[in-house]
């Protein structure tokens, strides 16, 4: 593509040639011809984007707010020089450059390699993709340019931050009935030793007690005490209304942080954790324990985005067969724009579940971005307080979570009826 400068030189050259011809002035004509020759000779030089790109990331998965180290290796495998290229590695607009630069002007000879190294800060959770690589050839004298892409992408999952809430959970008024895994004096899946028994076909080799086999000459296997675990259910409100506030500070963002932190806390205690996210549909991750479940929960939370308006009642109705009897249910919702919230929580409490409602105050998030008249704000706050009081009245524990309050602090502010 011709640049504006090239177009200007061509028109100037032609004009000078024509004016020179009309006035029989060889100087003007010569300048005109030189201008046009300049374009012509430069036309011989063209760049190419026949490059091999490889991008290395310091991590494929990381937590929100962490730094990502990126290295982009660019090799010219062609037998001719690339000429002057500008290489730009496209990064998601949510990410911020912390050090280095995702851009470099290069002129690579045949077989030459160069490396662009930069550090990104990832302030937003989600599934992101770095790339493609944009390449722009610019003629040495900036007369011609050509834009190319190399569709090389690297995927990346940014998990929500996980806060340490152990101390807060101990000190808070949240019920202590789910104290983590407790061993029962019966054989079953667990961690502590219970007894030895004879090997039966089908038993995994890894539980064979080789010392006992050496001593007795018969295959014996270890049996473990059965661990009793509590099933914890976390319900996260990801409806459209949860996006209110700024990109970094809104009920959904801090709700996902809370869900991740709770899940981490309970999984570390070897409880089973289930996650339900409701937006325009319900996504349910059945209860399980262990690191795999932790990874699954974080991955699910990373992909959460605000959409839809599914009522909570529909969620609880759909999940009621899956809820274990008497299990605690954490509901993370702003309690806005859903008239079924109160009956749904009433039903859950009525069925004997320990319900804890962690409610980011939507009206206060809205106040960050827009000016709400004082009277309107007071009325809306009063309505919200009434809603919280009503929920607390059913026996649920309610946490009114203000925007500038840390999760661990918020957990200490449990209000019960």
């Amino acid at each position, binding site marked *: 593509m011709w640049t504006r400068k090239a177009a200007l030189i061509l028109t100037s050259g032609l004009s000078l*040639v024509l*004016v*020179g*011809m009309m*006035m*029989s*002035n*060889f*100087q*003007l*004509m*010569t*300048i005109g*011809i*030189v*201008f*046009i*020759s*300049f374009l*012509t*000779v*430069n*036309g*011989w*030089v*063209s760049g190419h984007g026949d490059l091999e790109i490889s991008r*290395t*990331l*310091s*991590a*494929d998965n990381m937590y929100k707010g962490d730094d990502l*180290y*990126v*290295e982009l290796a660019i090799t010219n495998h*062609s*037998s*001719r*020089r690339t*000429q*002057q290229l500008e290489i730009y590695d496209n990064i998601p607009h949510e990410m911020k*450059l912390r*050090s*280095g*630069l995702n851009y*470099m*002007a*290069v*002129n*690579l*000879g*045949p*077989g030459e390699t*160069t*490396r*662009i*190294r*930069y550090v990104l800060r990832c302030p937003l959770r989600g599934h992101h993709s770095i790339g493609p690589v944009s390449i722009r050839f610019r003629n*040495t*004298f*900036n007369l011609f340019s050509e834009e190319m892409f190399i569709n090389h992408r690297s995927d990346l999952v940014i998990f929500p931050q996980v806060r340490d809430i152990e101390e807060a959970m101990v000190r808070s008024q949240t019920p202590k009935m789910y104290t983590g895994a407790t061993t029962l004096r019966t054989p079953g899946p667990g961690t502590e030793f219970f007894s030895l028994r004879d090997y039966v076909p089908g038993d995994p080799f890894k539980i064979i007690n080789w010392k006992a086999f050496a001593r007795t000459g018969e295959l014996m296997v270890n049996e473990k005490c059965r661990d009793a675990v509590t099933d914890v259910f976390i319900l996260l409100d990801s409806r459209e209304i949860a996006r209110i506030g700024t990109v970094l500070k809104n009920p959904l963002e801090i709700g996902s942080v809370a869900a991740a932190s709770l899940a981490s806390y309970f999984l570390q205690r070897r409880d089973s954790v289930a996650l339900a996210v409701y937006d325009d549909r319900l996504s349910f991750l059945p209860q399980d324990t262990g690191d795999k479940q932790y990874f699954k929960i974080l991955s699910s939370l990373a992909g959460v985005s605000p959409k839809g308006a599914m009522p909570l009642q529909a969620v609880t109705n759909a999940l009621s067969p899956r809820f274990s009897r008497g299990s605690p249910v954490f509901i993370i919702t702003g309690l806005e724009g859903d008239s079924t919230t109160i009956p749904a929580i009433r039903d859950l409490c009525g069925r004997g579940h320990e319900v804890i409602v962690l409610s980011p105050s939507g009206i206060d998030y809205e106040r960050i971005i827009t000016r709400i008249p004082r009277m309107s704000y007071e009325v809306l706050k009063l309505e919200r307080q009434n809603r919280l009081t009503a929920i607390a009245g059913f026996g649920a524990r309610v946490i009114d979570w203000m925007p500038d309050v840390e999760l661990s602090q918020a957990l200490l502010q449990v209000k019960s009826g």
Partner: protein
Amino acid sequence: MAEEVQLQQEGLTTLHLRHLRKKWQILSLQVLATISLLWMFMLITRTYGACDSAVVASANSRNALYWCPAYDHTLTLAWMQAILADGMSDPTYSLPLPDWMTGAGNSGDGRYFMPIVIISLFTAGWVALGSQTALIRRRVSIGILGVAIVYLAGIFTLTWLWGMFSSWSLYLPFGQTVSSGRNHAEHLIGPLTLYIQLFIMLLVFVPIVCGLLGIWNLSKRMLSWAVAWPLLFLGFHALLSYEGVRANFDVGLETLPSQIGEATEFGGLMSPQIAPLLLIAVLFIVFLESAFAVIRQIEYAFRLPESCKKDPEYVRQFENVMNHHLVHTVGVMFFVWLVSALAIKFDDLIISLVGLFEGNQWSEQVRESLELQLTYGTVISAMVFVVFVAGLRYIVPWQRIIGFIEVSMKERSEQPAPVVEEF
């Protein structure tokens, strides 16, 4: 795949401004731009610095001064000195700036050497000042302005005030009789003459002043002036020396030849009339591109974050880009000159080619065709040649050829030295 990623390295050479200023590639481009500017200026003065020979002869026969808007400041200074000497009835009067400084009285290129040296010193001082703090720059600028104002109005104001105080009466400093000692406006003549003299010199040396400041003080605005001024002059010269204009309004400018003469220079490639014109045009582009490239590349380096300025990869690629800019400047500009010269000569080539078909009526007609040898024929044939050259891009894979040469040179330089076995 997640892997260990190296952090940005730090090398010994960086892309900080203080290092860039000393980088040989940057200095080469600046020197190239300076040489092109000075050479272009000298060629312009040689080509456009004289009045019409008829005007000169007529003035010489009358032993009178002559003036024309040629690109020569000494003409205007001599004319101004004569007018002032006449007005003061003092034939020995000379302008405040001495002749050795302005180049007046010299002939040929000697008229420009001393002013160029002085301008270069001034530019060097200004560039050095540019590296000082803003406070010092401001103080020096205000100081120069203050001295200029005091020199212009200081003696005038002091003598006027002292005159009013000593005579104890209020009066205007002008319009008084000279003998009364109250015509203090006389004190303005000297400084004003100096400033006018400087202004006249500045008008001629604008490309040098602005060009040098643009190249060494990295100012795009100055470079634009340095480029625009010669173009404006060439445009006015073309207009004023145009036959149609001269018929009604002749300012006595020397006209360029309207015919290309016999090609005797560069092995018969071009005529002596065209050679300087072509060189002016080529040097104009070399100056423009080199000077702007320096600023463009320094701007790129300046905008890089601190970590990238120290990163050896960025430094290496910057050097790559600069090296190839230099290579292209030399290579492309040589070809531009060659293609332009061949294009202008192409009409001759066509006639010579047609001459091969001797005995043919058509070939005889073409050989004797005046149109082909006149301006229109020259330009049209030149354009045909340029289009042909543009098409060569698709025929000759020269970039690939150069690439192969580069690869083979690289392989040869990377080959280990043969092991000499001792017996």
